[in-house]
C-alpha cells in the first residue's frame, strides 16, 4: 500500500508532470510565473485547492454517483463541485484565517477555471483510484505544478537581463524555456 502510494507520488509529481507533459494548468503556469514569490504563492494555493478538490470529488463519486448509478454525470458534477468549493474556501479563509487569505486570496479565483483541478478529479476516476490514492495523486500533481512553476519563474527572473530577438520577446521565449524544461523532465521517465 505504502509502496503504491509512493509510486503515485513520484509518478504524478515528476514523471508525468501536470504542466510539462500533460499541458494542464498552462494559463497560470505562463501567466503567474514572472516572479518566484508570486509563483510559489500560486503553487501553494494550487496544492491546497487540488488536494481538497480531489478529496471532495472522490467522496462524491464513491458515495453519491456510484450508488445512484449516474457516473456518466461526473463531468457536470465535478465542475460544479470545484467551482463551489473554491468559492467556499475563499469565503472561509476570509472570515476565519485572514492571514492565510491575504497570502493566497488573489490566487484563488484564478484556480476556478484551472483545468488541472478538473483534470485531476477525472484522472482519479479514470485510473480507478480510491479516495486515499486520489488525494495522494492530487497532492502529488499539485506539487509537480509548484515545482515547475517555481523553476520557470526563477529562469524568467534571470532572463530579464538577456538580449532576446524582438519577435521572441514575451511569450515565445517563455515557451521555448518551457520546452527545454520539458526535455529535462523527460529524463525523470527512467525513475519508475
Amino acid at each position, binding site marked *: 500500500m505504502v509502496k503504491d502510494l509512493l509510486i503515485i507520488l513520484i509518478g504524478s509529481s515528476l514523471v508525468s508532470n501536470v504542466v510539462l507533459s500533460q*499541458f494542464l494548468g498552462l494559463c497560470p503556469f505562463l501567466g503567474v510565473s514572472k516572479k518566484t514569490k508570486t509563483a510559489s504563492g500560486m503553487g501553494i494555493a494550487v496544492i491546497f485547492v487540488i488536494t481538497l478538490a480531489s478529496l471532495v470529488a472522490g467522496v462524491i463519486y464513491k458515495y453519491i454517483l456510484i450508488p445512484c448509478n449516474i457516473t456518466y454525470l461526473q463531468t457536470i458534477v465535478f465542475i460544479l463541485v470545484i467551482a463551489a468549493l473554491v468559492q467556499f474556501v475563499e469565503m472561509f479563509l476570509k472570515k476565519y484565517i485572514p492571514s492565510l487569505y491575504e497570502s493566497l486570496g488573489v490566487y484563488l*479565483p484564478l484556480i476556478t477555471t484551472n483545468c488541472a483541478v478538473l483534470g485531476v478529479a477525472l484522472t482519479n476516476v479514470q485510473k480507478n483510484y480510491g479516495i486515499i490514492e486520489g488525494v495522494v495523486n492530487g497532492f502529488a500533481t499539485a506539487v509537480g505544478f509548484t515545482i515547475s512553476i517555481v523553476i520557470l519563474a526563477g529562469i524568467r527572473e534571470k532572463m530579464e537581463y538577456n538580449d532576446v530577438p524582438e519577435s521572441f520577446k514575451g511569450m515565445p521565449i517563455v515557451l521555448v524555456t518551457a520546452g527545454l524544461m520539458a526535455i529535462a523532465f523527460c529524463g525523470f521517465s527512467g525513475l519508475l
Partner: protein
Amino acid sequence: MNSAKERLINGLIKENPTFVLMLGMCPTLAVTTSAMNGLGMGLTTMVVLALSNAFISLLRNIIPDKVRIPAFIVIIASFVTMVELLLEGFIPSLYDALGIYIPLIVVNCIILGRAEAYASKNGVIASLFDGIGMGLGFSFALTCIGAVRELIGAGTLFGYKVMPESYVPSTIFIMAPGAFFVLALLTAVQNKIKIAGEKRGKDMSKIQSGCGSDCMNCKDMGCAQRMIKEEEEGKANG
C-alpha cells in the same frame, strides 16, 4: 444568410481562436501529436461549441443575469457529456486517442468566451453559425499544428508516409517538448506580424499574445473576460 456567412469567415480567419486570439491552448498543445488527432479534437469542440451556442442563445432571456456563468457551464458540460458518450460508442479509436481531453472541453475558454461574448446577446441562427465558424477555425488551426508536428516528428501525414526513406524523424516533435517549441515559433511569427503591422500604423490590438500574458488581470473568468471586453470595444467603435 449574409450574417451567417460573415460569422463563418469571422471565426475561420478574422478572429481565428488559435492563430489570432490564442485561446484554448491546453488542448491545442496536448492533442496535436498527429494531424488526425488535431482534426478530431477540433471537430469535437466544434460540435459542442455550435450546440451550446445555439442553446444558450435560445435561453438567453430566461437565464437570470446573476447566475449566468454557472448556468452556461452546466449547459456546456451537458453537451460535452453527450458528445463524449457518442464518441465512446461510435468512434472508440478517437475516444481513446483524446482520452481525458474530451471532458476537459468544458473548461476550454473558447466555449465559455463565445457564450458570454456572442450567444448571450444574439439570435439562435447567428449564434449557431458563430459556433460553427469558431469551431472550423479551431479545427483548421489544430489540424495545421498537428500536421507540422506529425510531419517533422514521424515523417507521416494523416498516417501516410510522405517523407523519403532517408529522412530520420526527430521524435521530440511529437513528444511534449515539441508542442512547446511549435507554439513558441507560432507566437514568434504572430509577434512579428504584429510589430510589422504597428509600424505601418495599423490597429493590431486584436492579435493577442497568448492567454498567459495577462492572466493576473482576467480574474474570475480566465481568458473569457478578455474576449468580452474586445467584443464590447468593437461594438463601441463600430
